[in-house]
C-alpha cells in the first residue's frame, strides 16, 4: 500500500526540482496532444519554450516577456502575502480594473495639461482605486466576519460592469467618432507609463521588481512578515504572539488591492493605452495561479510570472507558425498548472510503500 508521510520539514531539493519535473512532464503530455492534433510535437514545444527566448526574433520577444509578465508578478506578489496569512483575495481582477479606471480617470481629467505631476498623481489614483475596492471585502470581513473569497469575487463582476459603463459613457473619447473606449494615453506624453517601449520597459516592470524585493525583505527581515507567516501556519500561536488579526486582514487585502490597482494603472497608461470594454483580460485570475506556481515565494513568483508569460507568447507564435488552435494552447497551460500543483506533493510528503496492516 502506498502511503504519504509528511516530511518534518518541506524538502528543499524537491521544492527546486518539482517545477522542472512539471515542465518536463508537460512537454511530454503536451507533445502527445500536439501529435494527436497532427503537429510535430518537437517543433511545437521548441516554438513555445525556445523561440521567444533564443529564436531568430528573440530581440523582440524578450522585452515582450517583461510587458506580459510584469502585471502578473505585481499582482501575484500582493496576493501571496494574503495567501500566506490565510486571507483569500481572489478578486484581484476587479481591483485591477478599478485601479485602471481611477488612474486613467485622473489622467483624463488633466488632459491635455503637460505637467510633471500628472503621472505621479495617476499612480496614486491607481493604487487608491485598487486599495479602496479591496477594502470592501476587508472591512466586511473584519466588521462582520463575511467570507472575503466570495465578496472579492462578486466585486469583479461589479467592476466589469463599471468598466463597460465608463468606456461607453463618462470616459468615452470625445474625438472617437462615437465608438466606445477612452482617449489613448500613449498620445498624452505626461500620462504614459512607458520608459522605453522597445526595451519593453514601463513603470509597471520597475514596480514589479521593487515589489519582489519589498516582499522578500518584508517576509524575511521584518516583524510584520513574521506575523503573516505565523498567522498562516499557526493561527493560535499567532494570537498568543500578539498578532492583531483584524489589522493583518486590512493590511493583506489593502496591499494586494493597491498592487493590483497599480498593475491596472501601469497597463492602461502603457501597453493597453486606453480604457475599453474588454480592457481586463484575466491578469487578476492568472496571477492567483502565478502566486501558487511560485510557491508564494517572491523569487518563485518572479520565475512563475516569467514562465506564464513565456507560454502566452510562445503559444501565440505556435498558433501563427504551426497553425495550432488557441484552445490547444489553453489546454497546454492547464496541463502545466496541473503538474506543478500535483507535484508540489513531493515537497511536503514522502511517498512510502508499506505493507497493509492486518486489522
Amino acid at each position, binding site marked *: 500500500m502506498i502511503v504519504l508521510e509528511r516530511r518534518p520539514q518541506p524538502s528543499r531539493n524537491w521544492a527546486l526540482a518539482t517545477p522542472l519535473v512539471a515542465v518536463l512532464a508537460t512537454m511530454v503530455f503536451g507533445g502527445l496532444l500536439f501529435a494527436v492534433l497532427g503537429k510535430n510535437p518537437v517543433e511545437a514545444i521548441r516554438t513555445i519554450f525556445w523561440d521567444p527566448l533564443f529564436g531568430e526574433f528573440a530581440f523582440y520577444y524578450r522585452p515582450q516577456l517583461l510587458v506580459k509578465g510584469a502585471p502578473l508578478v505585481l499582482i501575484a506578489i500582493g496576493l501571496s502575502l494574503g495567501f500566506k496569512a490565510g486571507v483569500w483575495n481572489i478578486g484581484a481582477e476587479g481591483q485591477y480594473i478599478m485601479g485602471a479606471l481611477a488612474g486613467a480617470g485622473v489622467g483624463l481629467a488633466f488632459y491635455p495639461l503637460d505637467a510633471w505631476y500628472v503621472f505621479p498623481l495617476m499612480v496614486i489614483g491607481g493604487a487608491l482605486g485598487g486599495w479602496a475596492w479591496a477594502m470592501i471585502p476587508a472591512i466586511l470581513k473584519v466588521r462582520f466576519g463575511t467570507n472575503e473569497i466570495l465578496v472579492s469575487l462578486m466585486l469583479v463582476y461589479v467592476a466589469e460592469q463599471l468598466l463597460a459603463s465608463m468606456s461607453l459613457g463618462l470616459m468615452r473619447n470625445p474625438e472617437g467618432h462615437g465608438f466606445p473606449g477612452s482617449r489613448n494615453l500613449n498620445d498624452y506624453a505626461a500620462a504614459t507609463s512607458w520608459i522605453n517601449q522597445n526595451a519593453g520597459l514601463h513603470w509597471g516592470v520597475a514596480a514589479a521588481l521593487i515589489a519582489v524585493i519589498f516582499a522578500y525583505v518584508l517576509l524575511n527581515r521584518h516583524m510584520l512578515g513574521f506575523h503573516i507567516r505565523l498567522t498562516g501556519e499557526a493561527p493560535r500561536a499567532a494570537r498568543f504572539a500578539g498578532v492583531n488579526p483584524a489589522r493583518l486582514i486590512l493590511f493583506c487585502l489593502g496591499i494586494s488591492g493597491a498592487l493590483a490597482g497599480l498593475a491596472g494603472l501601469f497597463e492602461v497608461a502603457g501597453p*493597453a493605452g486606453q480604457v475599453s470594454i474588454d480592457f481586463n483580460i484575466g491578469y487578476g485570475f492568472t496571477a492567483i495561479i502565478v502566486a501558487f506556481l511560485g510557491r508564494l515565494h517572491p523569487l518563485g513568483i518572479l520565475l512563475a510570472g516569467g514562465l506564464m508569460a513565456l507560454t502566452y507568447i510562445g503559444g501565440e507564435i505556435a*498558433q501563427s507558425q504551426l497553425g495550432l488552435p488557441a484552445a490547444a494552447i489553453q489546454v497546454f497551460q492547464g496541463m502545466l498548472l496541473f503538474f506543478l500543483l500535483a507535484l508540489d506533493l513531493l515537497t511536503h510528503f514522502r511517498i512510502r510503500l508499506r505493507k497493509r496492516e492486518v486489522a
Partner: protein
Amino acid sequence: MKLTALFASAAMVLGLATGAVAQDKTKIGFVYVGPVGDGGWTYEHDQARQAVVAEFGDKVETVFVESVPEGPDSERVMTQMALNGADLIFTTSFGYMDSTINVAKKFPNVKFEHATGYKTAPNVSVYSARFYEGRAVQGHIAGRMTKSNIVGYIGSYPIPEVIRGINSAYIHAKKVNPDVQFKIVWAYTWFDPAKEADAAKVLIEQGADVILQHTDSTAPQAAAKAAGNVITFGQASDMSEYAPSPRVSSIIDNWAPYYIARTQAVMDGTWESVNTWDGIGAGMVGIGEISDAVPAEIKAEALALKDSIAAGDYHPFTGPIRKQDGSAWLAEGEVADDGTLAGMNFYVEGIEGDIPN
C-alpha cells in the same frame, strides 16, 4: 548506391523547388478577436481567409491567430507576423485600431488592413461594410410581414454601427407599414448565446413577431422557432439551418471579394492605402436567399429594393428624415454623408426610447 544518389538529387530538386516557391509566396496574416468557431464575426473572416487560399492556392501562405485580446497582445501578434515575413496583415476588430497603426509605423514595407476603424496610414487601409444597406431590406420585409406591428431588435452595445442598423431597418419598415413599432433590447455583450436567447424570448413574449438581431449567435433563431409564427433574419452568417422559417433571409458578412482583391493588389505591387466602405453593390454585404415563407410579392419588392441599392440608384438614408427629437436632419431628397453615418449616435423620428449611455 544509385538509389541514395537518386534520393539525394530528388531531395535537392525538392529543396530548390520549395525554396523558389517560398520566395514567390505572398504571406498573409489574420488577427482574429474571437475563436474561428464562433459561428459569426470571426468565422466569416476565416471563411474569407480560406477563400483567399482557394483562389491563389500555392501562391499564398496564410497564418492566423484567434482569440487575440485587444491591446498589447494584439500588437505583439501583429509584430510577430510582420517579423516572420508577412506581406499583408488583416486586423479584424475595431479595438485593434491603435495597435495596427503602431505596428505599421515599425514595418513600412508591410501592408495592413484594419476592419471597421477610421485611422489610416500610408501602409494602413481601413475597410468596413455598409451593413445598413442590408438592414434596409430586412426592415422592408419586417414591416410587410409583421401582423402584430411589433418588431423586436436585439442590439449588442449602443455604438454607431448598431444604431445605424436600427435606424435603417426602422425607416424602411415604417415606409411600408406606418403602424410599425420597434422594441429594442440591449444585450451589453458581443457574445453570450444564453442572453441572446433570453432577449429574443422576452421580445416575443411582448408581442414581437419579427426579430432582428445584431448579435451573432443562432440563439434568437431557435427561440423564434420554438415560439412559432415569428420570423428572423440570419446575422453575420447565413444561418440557413433555420430556413425556410423562422429565418426568412439574412445579412452575410462577405469579406472574400475584398480579401482576394487586396491580396492580388499586393502581388501586383499596386496596393495603396484606401478607405473602403462597401455594401451590397460590391458584394461585401450579402443578402441571403429570401425563403418561401415570404410571399412572392414581398420577396419581389425586397429584391427590387436590394437591386436599386446595389446599383447605387437609392441610398437607404434619403430625406426627408428627422431625428428622434423632431429636429430636421435630411431635407427632401438629401442623402446622408458618410461622416454623419459613421458616427451616428441618434435615433430617427418615430423610434421610442433613449439610447442608453
